[in-house]
């Protein structure tokens, strides 16, 4: 099967959906002439012209709202945030308008829109540019929240998100754009929102992670396998709706659960996962659920400190050993 980068997978997903449906357009800062700050929209302006690939000025609240208004009357906007850090100035539009218009209008208007862009810490970009905001969006009924870890998932989920009739917050891994995966060359590659995926099977411990942390877990699993410890790595892929059945069935099997997330611990999405797992698997659990998260601090700039703050393979390994009572 052809191998593709996560960046190209996203790019092709948009290109294919824009070819398929003339109501789909993309709007955001530098998405057109500049081909995207992270080059995810490379070539789209050339293919679809300025009518459908729209460079927006720096006004996230404004252009998020423009997208919502356009979606209400039948277009299908893709709104790119240069990074999700900047979605904070637009969050009122997403929470109070996009998520609620279907309800406020009692189903008369719906808002088929995708808010996408990279999220999570990158490398040494400091505290204002290094945050994982998925728990904010996952909290809000009326939204769907998607966080793909691989190029395959990125493509299949973005295509589904664009075709979805609801507002979808689609958070890409800022450090995953160059990662590659096998991706079939299929214009109808659609991965349903709300279905998780087992990224590695194992019987001793369940590792639950999404986006970049799936990669960290896969590394940790490889390392632990050397000691005969078999980890099951479960990637929910969509945080809202969450595939609790998949998570629970894995923990039912393994009896141990470690949740790994790149963001802050307190009231992070991992807490929700932990609540669901303890609720459904209390009897099966042989140890308390552990979380591995970022330190509870704004991100420092210096590389050595940044590494210390973020969850590393060694932290996951240590947590797995703890829930197995090996240390």
């Amino acid at each position, binding site marked *: 099967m052809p191998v593709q980068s996560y960046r190209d997978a996203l790019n092709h997903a948009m290109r294919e959906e824009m070819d398929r449906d003339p109501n789909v357009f993309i709007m955001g800062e530098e998405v057109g002439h500049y081909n995207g700050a992270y080059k995810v929209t490379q070539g789209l302006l050339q293919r679809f012209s300025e009518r459908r690939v729209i460079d927006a000025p720096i006004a996230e609240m404004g252009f998020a709202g423009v997208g919502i*208004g356009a979606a209400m009357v039948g277009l299908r906007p893709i709104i790119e945030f240069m990074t999700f850090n900047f979605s904070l100035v637009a969050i009122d539009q997403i929470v109070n308008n996009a998520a609620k218009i279907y309800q406020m209008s009692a189903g008369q208007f719906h808002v088929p829109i995708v808010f996408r862009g990279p999220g999570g810490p990158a490398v040494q970009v400091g505290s204002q540019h290094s945050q994982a905001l998925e728990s904010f969006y996952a909290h809000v009924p009326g939204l769907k929240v998607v966080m793909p870890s691989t190029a395959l998932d990125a493509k299949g989920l973005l295509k589904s998100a664009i075709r979805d009739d609801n507002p979808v917050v689609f958070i890409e891994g800022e450090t995953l754009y160059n990662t590659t995966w096998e991706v079939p060359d299929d214009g109808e590659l659609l991965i349903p929102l*709300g279905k998780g995926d087992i990224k590695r099977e194992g019987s001793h411990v369940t590792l639950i992670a999404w986006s970049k942390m799936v990669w960290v877990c896969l590394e940790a699993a490889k390392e632990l396998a050397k000691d005969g410890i078999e980890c099951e790595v479960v990637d929910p892929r969509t945080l809202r709706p969450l595939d609790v059945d998949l998570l629970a069935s894995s923990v039912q099997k393994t009896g141990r659960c470690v949740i790994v997330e790149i963001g802050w611990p307190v009231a992070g999405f991992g807490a929700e996962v932990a609540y669901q797992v303890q609720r459904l698997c209390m009897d099966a659990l042989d140890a308390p659920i552990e979380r591995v998260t970022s330190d509870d601090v704004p991100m420092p700039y210096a590389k050595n400190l940044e590494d210390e703050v973020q969850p590393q393979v060694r932290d996951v390994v240590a947590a797995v050993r703890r829930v197995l009572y090996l240390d």
Partner: protein
Amino acid sequence: MVAPVATSFSSRPTTPESARVEDDTADEPSATTAAELAPLYRQMLAIRRMEEASAKAYSQGKIGGFLHLIIGQEAVCVGAISTLQKDDYVVATYREHGHAYAKGVTSRAILAELYGKKTGCVKGLGGSMHIFDRETNFLGGYGIVGGHVPIAAGAAFAAKYRNDKRVTLCFFGDGASTIGGFAEGLALAALWKLPVVMICENNQYSMGTPLYRSVAVEDVSLRALAHGMARDRFDGDDVVKVKRRIADAVERARTTGEPTLIEVVTYRFRGHSMSDPGLYRTKDELEEWKRRDPLNRARARLVDTGMPEADIAALEDDVKAEIEDAVQFAESSPVADEYKKYVIKDGEG
């Protein structure tokens, strides 16, 4: 550390002076006919009666939450929306019963909504602040000040994208002129030349704050200058004049695609919402404005056009009957009963 000098942050004494527009057409009534004016008068009157009925129901505990009445300002929404075609869009605030009615939403659907009934225009889910109606392209009443301005720009964006010549009217208050959502929506409409008319209903107060304590310069229409956008500013108590002046902007939007920023100076006779006693203004000020009641004015002009008093009275009876029926409809409708259905469309898409 603190200087002994008391520093005031407000720019004028607290007694407002009446803020009338300098406008050479202010006292010349626009030429009109009974055929034009009668339906406008009818709409204004229906809105007035509908809101009076809702105030009464509120005091009886039949309507809850926030109820913001537009009484005194009816000429603005009626005059403005009368310039539109059915396909055109309207986006409004939480003070939007009149706008919805003018766009074609029925008094039955509006009052039933306020009563929280299943037969309301949004099935009792939205209440007074969130009226929506797909059929008449009424894109909603919104509760976050300024948050709907970009949405209006978005509807206009869609019209431009499709080149379907629809026009969007966006209504907002004077108090919205300081918030970022308005500034960004305006900037994008100007940059992309979107066919939208931004209408500031300057009723001179945002809740208890007179405009002179909200902005450095009491002229919201000046915001257009920095964007090279067309602007207008006029008194809003003559419904025909409102219609004429908004029509110019709608025509501009429809033919050239260009946006306009318009400020209409008006006044609300009631408190900000039902819980506001309005202590921040004097009785005299209120009475002065009531003397300019746009309904009285329209009625007097209707007489001037030669419409027989009997016909006017018949029209008024008709309005009375309509609102009585709507109240009856709201009272007797079943309570709201669905709410889980409208969270996510089509299950887990």
